[in-house]
């Protein structure tokens, strides 16, 4: 496949390491942290034209462009990042990094524990959104960024919010897409089912499976299947699959329906690119996130920030609902912050933030005019 004209083109994932110990929210510590990251565009001399893109649960630092001429797929937000796009690399310096706890080049449970010389496994400390952001801060400082725009969808939105609260001196603008200031009980429940599938897999071995022949693939695949149910909505499932059979009813418990086939496929391809422990740690970080409980109210949390905000949600997203976005808007108004809010119509459920790029582009481009260097 040829590289599209308005792409950032061939890019490379780089690695930033720092020795300094990080004290986590749990009071545990981590040393020798590595961060995988990519950048697109050029940082200006004032260091104030940066956009930090925060990824969702299972993505990576490769947000835009291609890794080689023969690369079949571009980065995960190619539709939004590039010359002339929503996050315009002709004007801005875009940074994307893999999160702490991940398995795409940044330190996580599958990384080597410098104290033992073996993968961390279950010895990796439980991390939070705040911890993830603290590690990103090291990278951003290293790159020489002074002021920036932070954006993220889903769990990435939580990171963006945390940035605005924790490092107000760095964040002038925050864009939170298809996200929430705290997960609903329903969403935590789905994450709990996913974690249980992993933990009860016979090859899980208490998280220490890296040197074993078998890994908890089955549990991870089920976790992903559950995830995919929550990323779609009833309408999307109906229009994609309906009650169609793959072939005809087999009168057994194999994969009969198209929707079963889809979930099975999603589960199967996921285990090749993701680590079960990372799934546990990251979903836990999402579940724990609740700045309102830390600051008393969400309003008080947002009072820490010096940013202006754009909140975008999708009407068919029941995992991160419009009501939850409106809660953030309300708290931001109470806190006296500048806030804009748009609810986009989409039949795609939570997945919409990765799919509906045309309307998002219009809104974000207009909103970011104020930040153009």
């Amino acid at each position: 496949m040829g590289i599209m004209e308005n792409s950032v083109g061939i890019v490379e994932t780089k690695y930033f390491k720092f020795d300094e110990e990080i004290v986590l929210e749990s009071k545990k510590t981590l040393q020798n942290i590595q961060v995988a990251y990519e950048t697109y565009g050029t940082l200006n001399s004032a260091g104030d034209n940066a956009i930090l893109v925060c990824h969702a649960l299972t993505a990576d630092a490769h947000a835009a462009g291609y890794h080689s001429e023969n690369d079949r797929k571009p980065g995960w937000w190619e539709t939004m990042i590039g010359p002339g796009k929503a996050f315009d690399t002709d004007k801005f310096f875009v940074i994307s990094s893999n999160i702490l706890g991940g398995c795409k080049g940044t330190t996580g449970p599958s990384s080597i524990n410098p104290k033992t010389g073996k993968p961390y496994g279950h010895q990796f400390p439980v991390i939070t959104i705040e911890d993830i952001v603290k590690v990103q801060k090291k990278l951003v400082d290293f790159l020489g960024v002074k002021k920036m725009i932070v954006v993220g969808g889903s769990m990435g939105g939580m990171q963006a919010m945390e940035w605005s609260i924790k490092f107000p001196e760095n964040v002038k603008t925050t864009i939170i897409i298809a996200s929430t200031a705290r997960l609903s009980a329903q969403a935590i429940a789905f994450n709990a089912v996913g974690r249980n599938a992993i933990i009860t897999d016979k090859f899980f071995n208490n998280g220490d499976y890296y040197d074993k022949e078998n890994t908890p693939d089955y549990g991870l695949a089920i976790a992903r299947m559950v995830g995919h149910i929550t990323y779609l909505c009833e309408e999307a499932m109906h229009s994609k699959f309906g009650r169609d059979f793959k072939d005809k009813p087999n009168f057994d418990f194999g994969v009969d329906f198209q929707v079963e086939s889809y979930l099975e496929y999603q589960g199967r391809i996921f285990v090749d690119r993701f680590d079960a422990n990372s799934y546990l740690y990251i979903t836990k970080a999402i579940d724990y996130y609740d700045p309102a409980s830390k600051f008393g109210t969400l309003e008080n949390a947002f009072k820490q920030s010096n940013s202006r905000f754009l909140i975008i949600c999708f009407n068919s997203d029941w995992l991160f609902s419009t009501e939850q976005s409106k809660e953030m808007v309300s708290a931001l108004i109470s806190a006296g912050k500048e806030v804009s809010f748009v609810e986009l119509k989409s039949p795609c459920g939570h997945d919409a933030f990765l799919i509906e790029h045309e309307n998002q582009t219009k809104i974000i481009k207009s909103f970011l005019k104020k930040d153009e260097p």
Partner: protein
Amino acid sequence: MNSTQLNYEVVTNLIPENARVLDLGCGDGTLFSKLIAEKKITGVGVEINQDEVIKALDKGVSVIQGDIDEGLKQFPDGSFDYAILNQTLQSTEKPDLVVDEMLRVAKKAVVSFPNFAYWKVRFYLFFKGKMPKSKALPYEWYNTPNIHLMTVNDFFEFCKNRNIKILKSVYLTKNKARSGILVRAITNFFSEEVVFVVSK
């Protein structure tokens, strides 16, 4: 100066500097950006139409997409100095509820609407026997968004019954604006459009 520009001029004059403003039905943000430029206001607009929202964002106006008729739930009590409802009250589903909500979220409200007792409107109905049309009321009866047309007198009565104070009134005719000094009956007859500042 056309009537829209005059209206914007009148509303801008009513808003004090540095006020925190909620502009309901802000459209493409023209009035709001004028208020930012001339009165250094802060705050946010509300607009239901997404294309208008994008135009407002383009002007650097903070805007919340939403339906005024669904209430102003996401706005906490007293979060603004002024709530503006410009040329929109007559097209809301529940004008009484909207005014109540405005005075919950803001200390003062600016409300403007076309006066249905304007003499030209009366004459139109009287002589033609048809629903009046004019520059201020350009629609047919079957497609008009103006589902709750009212008169200056109606609004005075509405405020009296609900213990709402009318702090200021400006009457607009023929590209001229007059402050509320005239006899009300005459005002009701000669004003094409009215702008009120009210509070609880």
